[in-house]
């Protein structure tokens, strides 16, 4: 397709709007001076400062723990759910998938507030002990990660020949073992993609974490927000740059995986079509 000048400019503008702020942020994270307007020279001092800051490092550690745990738990539960959904009848399947997709459309702020209310309500039941912290964040992250895992495992299950498990049983495999021997390996790509996606979203999340966190437990995005409230220090730029790069890398991995998957699928369909005539 050839682009004319107008559409070229238009595209450039859109990209500029999207990426200029981030570009500026990255640019100034390497600034020597303590300024967000004048670039005086290249330096890594804000990164150094960042890694010297114990409080920041602790929240980084928290974020990673939450991301690993919540995505792992969501992956296990989500995969089991997807397998269960697949075995439902046509209409119940549609219904459950609809219910699963709903939270994806729901604004984060609504989810966040709702979860906070739930936790506070439970807190009330248990006599007012402070429960907002590690566990509530973990539960919240598992919850919002679940649909993404289900959505990435589900298509893999649908592509599977429904007789695979029976074929395995037929060859001497008891039922449950057959699942681990032939279903799991075949849906693994979807499970891994789901895991990475959940991990990314967990690192990324601010809004929901904001509502369900307590003073005892902070994540990195919450830390950044807290820092901006005081004095905007260039080390925030450094931190944001790092988060941006990590998330970007993860997103690229997810997209590449999905693209190669689709290619494979297309190839399979073509070869299956030819198979009969060869």
């Amino acid at each position, binding site marked *: 397709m050839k682009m004319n000048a107008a559409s070229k400019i238009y595209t450039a503008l859109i990209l500029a709007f999207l990426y200029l702020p981030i570009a500026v942020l990255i640019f100034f994270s390497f600034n020597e001076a303590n300024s967000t307007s004048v670039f005086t020279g290249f330096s890594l001092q804000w990164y150094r400062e960042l890694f010297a800051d114990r409080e920041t490092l602790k929240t980084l550690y928290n974020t990673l723990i939450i991301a690993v745990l919540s995505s792992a738990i969501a992956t296990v539960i989500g995969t089991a759910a997807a397998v269960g959904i697949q075995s439902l009848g046509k209409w119940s399947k549609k219904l459950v998938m609809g219910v699963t997709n709903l939270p994806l459309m729901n604004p984060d702020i609504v989810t966040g507030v709702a979860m906070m209310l739930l936790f506070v309500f439970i807190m009330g039941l248990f006599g007012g002990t402070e429960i907002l912290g590690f566990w509530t964040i973990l539960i919240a992250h598992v919850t919002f990660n679940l649909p993404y895992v289900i959505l990435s495992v589900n298509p893999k299950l649908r592509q599977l020949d429904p007789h695979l498990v029976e074929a395995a049983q037929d060859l001497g495999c*008891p039922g449950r073992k057959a699942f681990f021997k032939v279903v799991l390996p075949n849906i693994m790509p979807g499970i891994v993609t789901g895991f990475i996606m959940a991990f990314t979203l967990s690192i990324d999340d601010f809004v929901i974490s904001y509502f369900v966190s307590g003073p005892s437990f902070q994540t990195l995005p919450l830390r950044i927000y807290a820092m901006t409230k005081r004095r905007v220090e260039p080390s925030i730029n450094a931190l944001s740059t790092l988060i941006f790069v990590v998330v970007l890398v993860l997103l690229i991995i997810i997209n590449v995986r999905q693209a190669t998957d689709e290619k494979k699928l297309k190839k399979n369909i073509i070869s299956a079509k030819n198979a*009969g005539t060869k």
Partner: protein
Amino acid sequence: MSDNNIIDLKNITVEYDGEQVLKGLDLSIRDGEFVTLLGPSGCGKTTTLRIIGGFVEPDSGDVFFDGQRINGVQPYRRQVSTIFQRYALFPHLNVYENIAFGLRVKKVPEKELKVRVREAIELVGLRGFEKRHIDTLSGGQQQRVAIARSLVTRPKVLLLDEPLAALDLKLRKDMQVELKNIQKTLGITFIFVTHDQEEALSMSDTVIVMDKGVIQQIGTPQDIYNEPVNAFVADFIGESNIVDGVMLRDGLVRFAGQSIPCVDKGFEKNEPVDVVIRPEDIDVVEKGKSPLSGTVDSVTFKGVHYEAIVDVDGFKWMIQTTDLIREGEEIGILLNPDDIHVMKKSEYSGMFGDYSSFSDEMDTISQPDYDPEGESLPAEDEE
């Protein structure tokens, strides 16, 4: 083939959503036999196989394997193996590992496993393909992998659910011969499902014709072709003219306004019957040289013979003859007593065997359970 039964089904009933799919099926299969289940789409062939394989539990009735009742025995404990309709190969394993699967599951020692997998690979002619990924294989090759994967576990009975349906005509013919050879070499029982009657006739020791969840006839291919029990079987296997008749007495049947000698007996006096005359058994003679005669409606050249639709006493017959006949011509129709096959009336009487609206295409589509998927394999004309 031995005399003891390897599989017995006794009064098997299966229901789906209140609909009876198998209605009191009784069936015995001898050890080492090549048996074919033949019938139109939806008649319950796959369901019957799945009962033997253990994937469907009958709502009532008993399944016996080698004399032992095996209702409720899990599929993985049964000494039968299935070739699924779409092969169901494991996409995450290569050819070798697909074939080795059953042995690995049973923890067969590596040394023995290697020998047995090699044997199976040789048997189906897949040497050199061991490392290939299964989605790089053609349909015929995938089929071979499926066969090897089942045979390597040394089942006593192999269940094959329309294994050749996805292959083109040429490959299908080759595989028919090959499957038959494998079965003879190994001497194990094959239960083969198809809705292609030619395939059934050419491969089997025994053919079981089913319709609507009921076995219509069990017999050798010759029996089924020459002595169909009712209009359904006569029509499903090959081409047939099926006309209304009355059995006057043993050896004499009246139809098309004439009394004709036949070889059938054992009917009541004046019992209404269906009379089957195969198109290729009919001799065309000069008008007047036979009590039966008709007017030629149309003639189609078929290579080996002509195929004519002839109006006999208001009923359209199909006649296959090598004699040249012309449209509009009046011909005599000569039938030897053993060209005539007399059947008892059945629920199928009057539904089949009239060629008044005949065209090749029409014939296929007007089959009661016409399966659009089976398009590639329409019932072939008899040579």
